Structures are given as structure tokens and as C-alpha cells.
């Protein structure tokens, strides 16, 4: 019996660090995720002024929303709408790729809601974010 106990303890000792490592981090270094990250990083400079003016806000669903179109000069609206559409395409793809990159495509929605919370948490003061009840609030 003692031998079994030792064996079992040894087995657990050998395997648990592997399991712990697997659970500790999500894979985010795939080429697809890297490309989306770069694309979003490059777009950010163009979007930032509109975050600050309140035209754009960080929505509760992990997307970027045109919150106040009237805050965008008419001549820029089309460009901004295009940027927002591109950004949201990248964001959706990012959530999907993170779920897929970790071999759990069904995690996509949870990845999205995790991101939604983190975008809002990390938003600069003065930016607009959407509350869980759908209302908008300035940070």
C-alpha cells in the first residue's frame, strides 16, 4: 500500500506542474493574433482623437461604437465610420483567433466579454465607456 501511495504522489508531483502551466496562460503569440494586434495598434493613432472627443466609445460588447456622430465633423464622418468598421472587424477576428489559438473556439464569447471589461477598465479618463445597463459614461 505504501508503494502505491508513493507512486501516486510521485505521479501527481510530476504531472501537476504541467497542468498548472497549461492553465496559467493563454496562447496569444500566433501569427494571426500578432497581425491583428499590429493592425489595431497602427489604427489607434487615427482613432484616439475621436475617443477623446467623445465621438467614439468603448461598448460593453467588446466593440468600438460611434456614440455621438455629431461630435465628428461632417467631412470626417465617412472616414471615421470606415475606421470603426475596420477596428471592429479586427476585434471580432482577435477574439475568434484567441479562442481558436487555444483550441477552444467555443471560448470566443467569453474572450470577447473579458476584453470588453478590460478595454473599459483601461480606457483613459475622458473617454466614454458603456455600462452593463447600456448607458454611456465618461471616465
Amino acid at each position, binding site marked *: 500500500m505504501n*508503494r502505491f501511495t508513493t507512486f501516486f504522489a510521485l505521479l501527481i508531483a510530476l504531472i501537476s506542474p504541467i*497542468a498548472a502551466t497549461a492553465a496559467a*496562460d493563454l496562447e496569444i503569440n500566433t501569427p494571426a493574433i500578432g497581425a491583428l494586434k499590429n493592425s*489595431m495598434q497602427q489604427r*489607434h493613432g487615427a482613432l484616439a482623437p475621436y475617443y477623446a472627443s467623445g465621438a467614439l466609445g468603448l461598448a460593453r460588447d467588446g466593440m468600438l461604437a460611434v456614440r455621438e456622430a455629431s461630435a465628428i465633423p461632417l467631412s470626417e464622418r465617412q472616414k471615421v465610420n470606415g475606421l470603426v468598421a475596420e477596428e471592429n472587424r479586427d476585434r471580432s477576428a482577435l477574439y475568434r483567433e484567441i479562442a481558436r489559438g487555444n483550441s477552444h473556439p467555443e471560448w470566443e464569447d467569453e*474572450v470577447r466579454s473579458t*476584453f470588453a471589461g478590460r478595454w473599459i477598465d*483601461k480606457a483613459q479618463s475622458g473617454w466614454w465607456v458603456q455600462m452593463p445597463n447600456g448607458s454611456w459614461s465618461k471616465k
Partner: protein
Amino acid sequence: MRAFSSRNLLLLALAGTLASCVTINIYFPAAAAEKAADKIIDEVWQLKKSEQKPADPAASQPTLK
């Protein structure tokens, strides 16, 4: 007889360990996801510029002297 039951127990232990590994992966790792999200958002919004710039020159020099 003793050797036989020892093998059985070992198999049981292996099955149990495998099952626990699968269990870990079925549930969404919320903490890990937050960490991953923070890392990506920091890069997209360039919130931690100091983290990206240095390190490289030092890291690329393998010699100790």
C-alpha cells in the same frame, strides 16, 4: 497478485490525472484571459512603451564579459 493490483492502481491514477487535465481545459480560464487581454490592450494602445523599447540590446549580447 500484488503486481497485478499495482498495475491496476497505476492505470486508475493515470486515468484520474488525464481526467483532471481535461477538466482544467473545459472551463474558461478567466484569469489567464484577463492577463492576455491586458497584454494585448497595452500593446494596441501602447500603454507601456518602456516595456517594449529596452531589453533588446542587452538580450542580444550573449557574452558575460
